[in-house]
């Protein structure tokens, strides 16, 4: 039966960058995702909002290979079945992920953090005998410039401020040269000035790549000015512009209660 359904899924997934259809995940009986469907077009930037426990992080886990779905299809770039691949393979395909809590390599310098993330051969023996090329140096410098950390290149990442760590992590994602960026709450714990600057940074990135942003902060989502998907209890509740979504009675009920 699956064999007859798969070609259909392929056909629908064909022109999309990321295609999720009827994805369900449960942990010990708790249904984190129930029949989640979501399509991201190439070059699109999408904001995902939803109350705690709506399944935002689980969705990211499924896309990046950390969690295998119980059922449903997950396709990347039309025909790559992500449910069969592990984290490293998915990352090499061009899906980058930023965690909610900034996660950088604290005992490495800012430079080395970017250098490690730089696209290239990831096999152990290849890195053992790797020699840094001029092109790689130029690329790291370019990224440091984008994320505004050029003057801190020799700092240990541990000594950066919270906001700077978030940028460094975004820079590491850029270095991977991904086609799709998944960004989990980039504005969490940032000052207002940093939040605004992060929105500008993400918009810059979205000019060349698809970006999915999960965020709680409504001001930030408004700053981004993109299509919004509202998740609730593991499936899509509403989709559209932020204004349309906020006016949706179902969304109002979930957010404000009855």
């Amino acid at each position, binding site marked *: 039966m699956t064999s007859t359904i798969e070609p259909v899924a392929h056909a629908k997934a064909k022109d999309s960058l990321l295609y999720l259809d009827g994805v369900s995940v449960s942990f010990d009986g708790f249904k984190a995702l129930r029949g989640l469907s979501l399509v991201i077009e190439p070059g699109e930037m999408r904001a995902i909002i939803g109350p705690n426990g709506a399944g935002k992080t689980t969705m990211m886990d499924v896309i*990046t290979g*950390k969690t295998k779905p119980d059922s449903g299809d997950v396709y990347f770039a039309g025909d790559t079945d992500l449910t069969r691949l*592990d*984290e*490293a393979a998915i*990352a*090499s395909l061009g899906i*980058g*992920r930023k*965690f909610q809590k900034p*996660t*950088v*390599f*604290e*005992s*490495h*310098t800012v430079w*080395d953090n970017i*250098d*490690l*993330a730089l696209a290239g051969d*990831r*096999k*152990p*023996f290849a*890195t*053992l*005998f*790797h020699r*840094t090329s001029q092109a790689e140096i130029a690329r790291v410098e370019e990224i440091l410039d984008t994320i505004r950390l050029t003057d801190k290149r*020799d*700092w*240990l990442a*541990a*000594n*950066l401020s919270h906001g700077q760590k978030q940028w460094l992590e975004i820079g*590491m994602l850029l270095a*991977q040269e991904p086609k799709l960026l998944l960004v989990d709450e980039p504005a969490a714990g940032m000052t207002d000035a940093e939040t605004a600057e992060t929105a500008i940074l993400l918009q810059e990135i979205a000019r060349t790549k698809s970006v999915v942003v999960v965020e709680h902060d409504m001001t930030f989502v408004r700053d981004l000015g993109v299509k919004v998907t509202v998740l609730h209890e593991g499936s899509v509740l509403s989709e559209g512009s932020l204004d349309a979504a906020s006016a949706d009675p179902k969304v109002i009920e979930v957010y404000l209660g009855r």
Partner: protein
Amino acid sequence: MVTNFLLRALDRRTAIVLIAILGVGILLPVLNLATDPSSPFHVPTYVLTLLGKYLTYALLALAVDLVWGFCGILSLGHAAFFALGGYAMGMYLMRQIGDRGTYGNPLLPDFMVFLNWKELPWFWTGFDHFWFAAILVLLVPGILAFVFGWFAFRSRVTGVYLSIITQAMTYALLLAFFRNDMGFGGNNGLTDFKEILGFDIQADTTRGALFFASALALAAGFWICRAVIASKFGKVLVAVRDAESRTRFIGYRVEGYKLLVWTLSAMMAGVAGALYVPQIGIINPGEFAPANSIEAVIWVAVGGRGTLIGPIVGALLVSFGKTWFTSGMLAEYWLFVLGGLFVLVTLFLPKGVVGTFLARDRKKPAEKPIEDVVAPGAVGQAAE
């Protein structure tokens, strides 16, 4: 490629350490052989042998630090790889005894005659040759580590769970080697060695050569570790230690990295064991004891994990302490001292002796942000 890989890591500091190790490796045997026993510069043979043992411990500590200090894999079973390397060398030394054993049997080692065995077990074939034993010194610990690591790292066993199964591994080997029918001399192990490469194993010149070989192995181990750490591979190891899942999400298959460094580390420990046995003159199952592996971890902690000089310094310091302490009246309290040392170092010197007092200069940028953040405020306050 490999030459390039090694030469690239040869900075001034590495060169100084290499020269220091090799200098000691040459100087002490010369002082032992070329000076008169009455001379104040004379190094007695027993001291040479003792220090030679310490050098093999230092190499074991380096191996532990490579996986623990740089990749976050806390091995509580590294003495197993050390002992396996030691057994491979011990088997060669047993075969060199020939018909000079107590029973004078030209074909079988004494313990096999005692057990009434009629022929040499298949796994003893080839150990008549030094080159064969030398290869197995690397291969046996290497293969065990590879198989163990392949299963453990693929299943993503980490942290304390991994430490516990390494401990179980060495304990299982301890029990296995105690059995007489394993064919490795059971409880007594392998001993009564006569010759190595045709030289009398008790002779001062042989002792001197073994001491130099230990220093050479330690220097080579240090250089290889330095090159590994300085490479991009080494940076990935530290990344795995700091944030394993982040490393996966930027596309590194972490298990491959762990497996490679783990196997390399086990082979280094095997070499250390192989040099230990001819100097000590015996290898028995006691070398697999869990306490030995834990002691190696303490050397690294005391010296400073995550530095390469640290484990060498730690192994030498703690071993000196052990020799000094256990030769006095307080001998039976040594384990308490060792345990206390571990607690004190963890509490007060978490970076170890070397990490605390000889930190690398490039760590300096760590202080920068404090200046930058504090300075404007401090100026403002001063103005008020």
